[in-house]
């Protein structure tokens, strides 16, 4: 009963993690936000850290498109069409690049699972209670060993 609930909770977490950026793409961005998420193709820094001719041109383009009411995803797609995927500071959420978003989440979940398993095994090891011997004071001997001990003692007494 607990396992399906855990799986559902995990799926919900993954869906939320992936959907939040998608929803953000449909709103109207600010200039500062776009300049922080678009890479200057010659400088390889974000636009807000570059004053190269092409960076200035891209800033002007973004300013113009924001004034025209374009959404964030629309502006990003237009810049990608002009300059390629490398113009985005974040990897795209499709194809092979989706791994860049999923792997950290998978790593956290896997790490938590391993940690949980180790803690569970450790607690099981601590719960194991040794067999009590006579009067409950000491652990009992192996029966074969006890028989051999008795034989030796009887020979000694003899």
């Amino acid at each position, binding site marked *: 009963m607990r396992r399906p609930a855990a799986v559902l909770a995990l799926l919900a977490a993954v869906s939320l993690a992936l959907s939040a950026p998608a929803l953000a793409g449909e709103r109207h961005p600010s200039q500062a936000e776009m300049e922080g998420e678009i890479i200057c*193709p*010659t400088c390889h820094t974000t636009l807000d850290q570059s004053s190269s*001719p*092409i960076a200035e*041109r891209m800033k002007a*383009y973004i300013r113009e498109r924001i004034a025209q009411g374009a959404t964030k995803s629309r502006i990003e797609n237009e810049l990608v069409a*002009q*300059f*390629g995927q*490398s113009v985005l500071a974040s990897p795209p959420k499709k194809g092979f690049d989706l791994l860049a978003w999923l792997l950290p989440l998978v790593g956290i979940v896997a790490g938590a699972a*391993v940690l949980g*398993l*180790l803690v569970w*095994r450790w607690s*099981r*090891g*601590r719960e*194991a209670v*040794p067999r009590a011997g006579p009067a409950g004071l000491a652990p009992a001997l192996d029966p074969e060993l006890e028989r051999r001990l008795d034989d030796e003692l009887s020979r000694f007494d003899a």
Partner: protein
Amino acid sequence: MPTLKSEMGAKPLKSGVQGATVAVVAALFGLLVWKLVSQGNGGVAKTVDTGKIAVAPGWKLPRLDGGGTLSLAALRGKPVVLNFWASWCEPCKIEAPVLEQASQKYAADGVAFIGVDMEDFKSDARSFVKRYDVSYTIVRGSRALWEPYGLTGYPETFFVDGSGKVVGHYAGQIDVKQVDEGVKRALAR
């Protein structure tokens, strides 16, 4: 006190985790080595600058005028002057008339002048072409050409002979004399 059974169960898990860790570290190290080996040989530019001849890396790029694509392979048999430029590049503006005049001068010899527009808005590239009356073919380049050609900036010009070998390279603004030298070398082979 841990039992023998619990200790025996923990050993495979511990070995598995250790093995997986070693495998991940080895894979990352291998990736680093591959990346270092596969890059940084300087591309065609470095090879030609040391006096050797290199095969021009192939490409298939969209034409700026919207007329489909053009590939380097389609130009086999003709000497090619390959000029990498951008509309925002000041030296590119200065050398544009030199290249245009040379393209007309050597048209009868079958020399193809190709301008590869890099890291540019299409509209800006079209404005540049109109402003400087560029009549030769312009294609839209991509960053993927940077490494194979060994580009270091714009403009850069390569001279390719009819068999597809790069016989000359100039980084920076090119003048009439340098264009003539490069074309003669490409025509001679």
